[in-house]
């Protein structure tokens, strides 16, 4: 059920400000694609444009084409809500719903979309998603407790469980480990490896070792200068990116000579 994503000539704006310019890439199905680059270069902005979350910000718009499974996401006939049901997202900061229990948080996507389901069906979705997010063993005895009572790493895995409970085809992750300790980070990286067999995963990260560890392909974004739009410098297989990149600036960034 995983889908590939084709991006062509994508320009992303905040009002009149061009934030990201001329992106072309193909994100492969059932693989992990990582985006790296310095702060403010438009990685997150680009990620958010992949499931039409970018336009949630007032004045934000997109030019160009993103094609998923033969459908152009920014076609006027496309319903952004339907897109987001297919392309899930995990955010930088864990954001479980504070009014809901762990159980309800996992089911939020299904419940909020007013899907009626039997108790047994709901239970099995909760267990499957929490197992999928490597959280089941830690919370199975306190599913009725508030989601906010978990630790940061557990909250982030709860958010991943919530995202996969609606069975999306693509999972976008915006620096999912930046607020977490190394142990939680490693739990989530293991999880990404497991999820790869069923989902197309796109991850933004500041941690180049993480990109090297988890991803199959890597895209390097950079700014020409402060105030200039960000652009995709290089998009290649991760192995090649980290050993023998095509662009000198990629090598400079990865080897830590700038940024």
């Amino acid at each position: 059920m995983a889908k590939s994503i084709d991006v062509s000539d994508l320009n992303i704006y905040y009002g009149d400000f061009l934030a990201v310019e001329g992106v072309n890439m193909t994100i492969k199905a059932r693989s992990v694609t990582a985006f790296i680059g310095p702060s403010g270069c438009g990685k997150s902005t680009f990620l958010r444009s992949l499931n039409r979350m970018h336009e949630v910000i007032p004045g934000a718009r997109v030019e160009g084409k993103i094609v998923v499974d033969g459908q152009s996401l920014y076609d006027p006939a496309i319903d952004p809500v339907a897109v987001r049901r297919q392309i899930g997202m995990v955010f930088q900061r864990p954001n479980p719903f504070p009014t809901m229990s762990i159980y309800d948080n996992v089911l939020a996507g299904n419940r909020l979309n007013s899907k009626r389901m039997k108790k047994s069906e709901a239970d099995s979705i909760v267990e499957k998603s929490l197992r999928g997010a490597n959280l089941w063993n830690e919370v199975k005895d306190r599913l009725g407790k508030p989601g906010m009572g978990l630790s940061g790493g557990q909250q982030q895995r709860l958010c991943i469980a919530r995202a996969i409970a609606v069975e999306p085809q693509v999972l976008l992750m915006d620096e999912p480990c930046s607020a977490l300790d190394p142990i939680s980070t490693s739990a989530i990286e293991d999880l990404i490896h497991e999820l790869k067999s069923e989902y197309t995963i796109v991850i933004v990260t500041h941690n180049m070792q993480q990109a090297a560890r988890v991803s199959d392909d890597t895209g390097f974004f950079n700014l020409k200068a402060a105030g200039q739009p960000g652009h995709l410098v290089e998009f290649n297989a991760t192995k090649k990116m980290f050993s023998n990149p095509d662009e000198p600036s990629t090598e400079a960034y990865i080897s830590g000579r700038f940024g």
Partner: protein
Amino acid sequence: MSTLQAPQAPGPSALHASLARPRLPRWAPAGLGLIVIGLAALLLVLGVGFGGSVALGALTYLVLLPTWSAVVEGSRAAVDRLVTSLVWGAFAVAMIPLVWLLWTAIDRGSSTINLEFLTFEMRNVIGDMQGGIYHALIGTLLVTLTAAVISVPIGVFTAIYVVEYGKKNRLSRLVTFLVDVMTGIPSIVAGLFALALFVLLVDPAYRSGFAGSVALSLLMIPTVVRSTEEMLRLVPEDLREASYALGVPKWRTITKVVLPTAFGGIVTGVVLAVSRVIGETAPLLIVAGVADSVNTNVFSERMQTLPVFIYYQYGLATDKGRAYAWGGALVLILLVMLLNLGARVIGRIFAPKKG
């Protein structure tokens, strides 16, 4: 690399710099306070007026404590002591009218309140016969409830528009501006407006609880809008995005995520708005009128309310009238207190929980 090395020969003064400072004993502020109160009492006995001795006592305290502290502890601690005393003083001054008012109402009103007072109306009550506030209590509850029923949906929906849909566009800024203007409407003007409205719509002699509710809702709506707006803005944008990213439509995000998260705060705001209007007298005097007996139909006939009852009874200038006025006032205060307690309970029940 030299900067990374530890300083090799720190001066003896740096090594022995003590972190301990002389401190005043823990009882110093309270003990000095007691002494100063004793001094003030002495002044009072010596014939200095009450206001004078309180002012002199406070001044003495504000001079003595910082001076003592400056001598023992140094200037930074002295400033700290001075500001602490000033803050406590401001708190005490703010509490005085509140406690005084409560005490007066309880002192003068509690003897009036009994079962008859709460369950009798004033119909055909003359002279020293036992009357009561039942009709006014019913009137106040009905009028305020109706006002809340009118203003809560309007207020909450307005706030939702301004925060969730308006996003600082021209219309939402205009709405915010008009709400601010409405906050300043004098209650008597709201009453006159309601009167004019119903005179125009129904007939010149029309008086009813409903007209009173309309006047009160004019006063309530801005408060409800303002407090709901604040509460909705407190809901983190993260939660809305989390919901959108799950493919939840905007209206469902608002009803299922934003409103439940802000629910406790919204209820508190609504109750504060109710407490603000429950004691309004002027508009109700104009449009709801004065009555002696129970009227449970808000849409017709005059309806007595507690503030109007208090005003009317006090205006009689009889001992019984004054006692009834204070009794009514105490009941009104208790009602508002009960409402606030209820709001706190509801707010706590629905507050986002941890752990």
